[in-house]
């Protein structure tokens, strides 16, 4: 499971002005993810730990906060190529700070500041969004404080995020398209794989190729009844069909997905 907590920056902080605390709010989201739900904190608490009461904060300061909290597996890139971030997010095992300049988000449906903010900002990326081509984003301004203010995590187009990241203001010049200042969490632990079992095809079947997102071995080439497989018992929905993954150790069709209704599971493999 992905540990996810939305943290707003406007939390009534008296240590330092809330309008400066977006990076601290993202760090609170980052810490929850990085600690697998063990560290639950606030924007204001993070800000206080920085002992910095001047203007905003940066990724270097957040790294120090993380280390002080006992999280040493994160990685700051100043900068990363965009592909590094896309690889990490696509794996569903990393969250990340993402520094941006806001002006390209301003005025869009995702704008949490009603057109009045254009400057450098920080977002927390939690993972892929529900819609293709989007990421699930915690903008710490998304607290629903006005009727038109987004509330909580939003699915934002990756193309827009990429443009905003490359637009980050580095003291009068933009970072550059295709680059991003990011601070990745440590990878989430691998979940325990479901048991491997012997399986037998009981109806002629196609299998799903997850690389090309297509069914293969259809019609006359359908996989024959009696074909032995080794499957894992987890259910994955592929091509709108409930399937078992065929284990890499399977003597036939490794790494494809087979419809559950077309196989009979047997003994542990």
């Amino acid at each position, binding site marked *: 499971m992905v540990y996810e907590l939305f943290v707003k920056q406007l939390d009534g902080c008296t240590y330092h002005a809330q309008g400066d605390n977006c990076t601290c709010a993202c760090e609170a989201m980052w810490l929850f993810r990085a600690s697998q739900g063990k560290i639950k904190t606030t924007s204001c608490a993070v800000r206080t730990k920085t002992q910095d009461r001047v203007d905003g904060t940066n990724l270097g300061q957040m790294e120090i906060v993380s280390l002080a909290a006992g999280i040493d597996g994160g990685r700051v890139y100043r900068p990363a190529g965009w592909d590094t971030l896309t690889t990490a997010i696509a794996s569903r095992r990393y969250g990340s700070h993402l520094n941006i300049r806001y002006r390209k988000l301003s005025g869009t449906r995702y704008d949490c500041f009603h057109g009045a903010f254009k400057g450098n900002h920080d977002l927390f990326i939690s993972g892929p969004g529900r819609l293709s081509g989007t990421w699930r984003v915690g903008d710490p301004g998304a607290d629903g404080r006005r009727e038109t203010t987004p509330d909580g995590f939003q699915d934002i187009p990756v193309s827009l995020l990429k443009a905003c990241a490359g637009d980050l203001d580095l003291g009068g010049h933009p970072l550059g398209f295709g680059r991003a200042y990011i601070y990745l969490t440590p990878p989430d632990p691998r979940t325990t794989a479901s048991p491997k079992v012997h399986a037998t095809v009981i109806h002629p079947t196609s299998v799903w*190729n997850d690389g090309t997102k297509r069914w293969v071995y259809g019609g006359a080439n359908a996989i024959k009844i009696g074909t032995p497989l080794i499957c894992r018992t987890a259910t994955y929905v592929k091509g709108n069909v409930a399937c078992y993954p065929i284990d890499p150790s399977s003597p036939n069709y490794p790494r494809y997905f087979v419809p559950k209704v077309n196989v009979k599971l047997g003994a542990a493999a």
Partner: protein
Amino acid sequence: MTEDPNPPVDDEPADTLPEVELPQNDPADDPKNDTIPEDAL
């Protein structure tokens, strides 16, 4: 239909990411976030 020429992907993602893939900027070039103006709050 014959076997698809494109091999399926393994759903096990890699643990490792590039240590350094671009020249890293100096930590001094680590901009603080800007202040959200009052009228946006």
